[in-house]
């Protein structure tokens, strides 16, 4: 049975991987287009807008700003069949350059042009390209850096719509636990080249670690009943947020709730026995500290004289 299950899992994994490989997308290079930005922009001193006139008017990221062949016709004889090979590696199988599909829907080229930004500010390597290669698109870090330097908005919603999938691949199933290490180490190689601050600000840390949790984002409703189980399951480390243990005693005192394990048999004065509290303290002294940090001398000293 176990062997059958293992074979099924391997089969499923292989199938899904092959399926993914089969759906790989085409690239600009695969279009077979022959084009040198360097020849046009540097050597012939053409302006970007000569071929991409729509860029200064474009209000949204989905606008297609690639020139149509008619634009080439301003300088080249695009009707002459013998010249097809000038731009197309395989004139008989002309393929379009695949559309940029990673665009930001809210991005306005016009807004940036009006602000006085040159095309090279965001696409610095384009003018030196002497053949068709991968797109030279700015990464989010450059956008954020520029916005930050100019004191502009850097909130996610300034540029992204609510339905955009923004969660990076590194934010996987164990990320709630692992994000602490990544934040502490600030190792971009562990976060797909991204720094936490690319998307998050200190207030985002504090919202979860110190906030009022009114939206029940950090702990769900009913957490008051299940928190002991979670604490002892150690899926999360309570002390990463609740270093100040007064937090625990405040709540237990305010609502006059004794911990469930403080029942008959919890403690006794039999030497070497101590009741259940001894066993629990050996396993999890932090649970004792949670409430008795400030009154340990009164509670513990009568039996455990210092």
């Amino acid at each position: 049975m176990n062997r059958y299950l293992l074979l099924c899992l391997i089969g499923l994994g292989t199938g899904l991987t092959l399926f993914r490989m089969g759906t790989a997308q085409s690239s600009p290079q695969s279009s077979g287009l022959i084009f040198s930005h360097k020849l046009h922009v540097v050597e012939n001193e053409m302006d970007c807008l000569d071929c991409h006139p729509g860029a200064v008017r474009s209000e949204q990221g989905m606008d297609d700003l690639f020139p149509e062949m008619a634009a080439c016709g301003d300088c080249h004889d695009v009707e002459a069949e013998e010249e097809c090979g000038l731009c197309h590696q395989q004139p008989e199988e002309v393929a379009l350059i695949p559309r940029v599909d990673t665009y930001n829907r809210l991005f306005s080229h016009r807004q940036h042009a009006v602000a006085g930004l040159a095309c090279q500010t965001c696409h610095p390597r384009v003018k030196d390209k002497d053949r068709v290669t991968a797109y030279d698109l700015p990464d989010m870090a450059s956008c954020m850096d520029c916005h930050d330097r100019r004191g502009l908005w850097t909130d996610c919603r300034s540029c992204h719509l609510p339905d955009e999938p923004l969660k990076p691949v590194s934010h996987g199933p164990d990320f709630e636990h692992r994000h602490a290490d990544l934040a502490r180490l600030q190792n971009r190689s562990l976060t797909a080249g991204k720094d936490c601050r690319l998307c998050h600000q200190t207030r985002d840390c504090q919202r979860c670690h110190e906030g009022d949790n009114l939206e029940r984002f950090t702990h769900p409703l009913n957490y008051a009943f299940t928190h002991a189980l979670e604490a002892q399951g150690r899926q999360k480390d309570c002390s990463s947020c609740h270093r100040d243990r007064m937090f625990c005693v405040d709540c237990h005192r305010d609502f006059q709730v004794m911990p469930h394990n403080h029942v008959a048999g919890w403690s006794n004065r039999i030497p070497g026995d101590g009741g259940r509290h001894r066993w629990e303290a050996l396993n999890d002294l932090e649970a004792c500290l949670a409430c008795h940090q400030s009154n340990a001398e009164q509670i513990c000293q009568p039996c455990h004289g210092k």
Partner: protein
Amino acid sequence: MRTLIKKGLPLVLIFIFSLSAQVHLQGSLQSMVYRWQPPDQESLTDFYQVLQFQLRSNALPGFSTRGYLRFAYRGPAPRWEDRFYHLYLQWQRTDRRLTLRLGRQFLYAGVWNGTFDALQVTWQSAGSLNLRFLLGSRAPFDRQWRWNASTEGMAYGVYLNWAGSSRLRITASILHQQKGRQLLHQLAGVGISGRLSRYLLYHTNLEYNIPGKSVQLFRHLMGYYREPWQVMVEWNHQKPRIREDSYFQIFQIRGFDQLRSSVGYRWHQWLFSLQYLRTWYDSDITNQWILGCSQQWGHVGIILQNGFGGQNLGVYGDVRYPLTSRFTLRAHSSYYNFQRHTVAIGEEATAYSLGLTYRHGPKLQLDADLQQSLNTYFRNDLRALLRLFYRFDI
């Protein structure tokens, strides 16, 4: 009156700073009303006001003031409470190599962990070295605006981060906390992380309790991230953090060991995951399995736990679905069937929440939530949250 002046002082300073010419003030305001009913009491309506801001002036290049404050009028005998999560003045050299930060700040670097009222100096070399110094005191746990050295003593520390390459990054840090002549904490930490190959990552972290002469925390993890797979295995040893002046120092302080593993598989927009945790205590063991499935607009999970602490079977789900570009529907539900190890009866806890977010442009957002819980103590605990979020840029 004196208290009012003392607490209002930072805001006055901010106001004076803002009077200088060419000020750029950016931030957000959040107003929240929360209605709920504590056990055996009348319904309460709490009010929360949150202010987050960043203030810069062209007249003082490199300087900025950043703050995150919360004021609340809440509780059975309502009164104003304030929390200063962070509020500091920062100066940064134009080349960003040197940064000075003075005031309340949230730190998370090496063994520095938490909120401090301190001066932090950061120096970034032209290469890959980042060096930080800290001098101050831990902020009060209620985050009120007061100097807390009488309780938490003074703290100082050094943090060093060297990023040689993606294959190796080393961090080293130390934090010393002392009240008068009494040592409270002295922790040193080393972290090594990087890539062994394009897809294989590692991270080792060690924290050492110097006065206790013992390992406070040791963590080693290996991760394999190659689309569509994510695999992680971690070993963790941890001891309770106990101050040197604590009465609890008289006891045997034992830690726990934990094996933690997770596997994730991404299929189109779906991420399927399985986590397994096994925790060894002094004389008991806890096991946890968490099976999850998430999409960009939602997540469902099943959690199964047994061992020390008790048993638990839980199911939970979370949805954030954009109805239109302005409206997002939010829903959450969880059901836990659990039995604590000291109570030989099974209990159930169910929770629901339903919310709607309305965005009016990038600056204004309105959220409304209804939250309901049903458990051993409350047949029906219904709560409501109304939140107004406003971003400003002056």
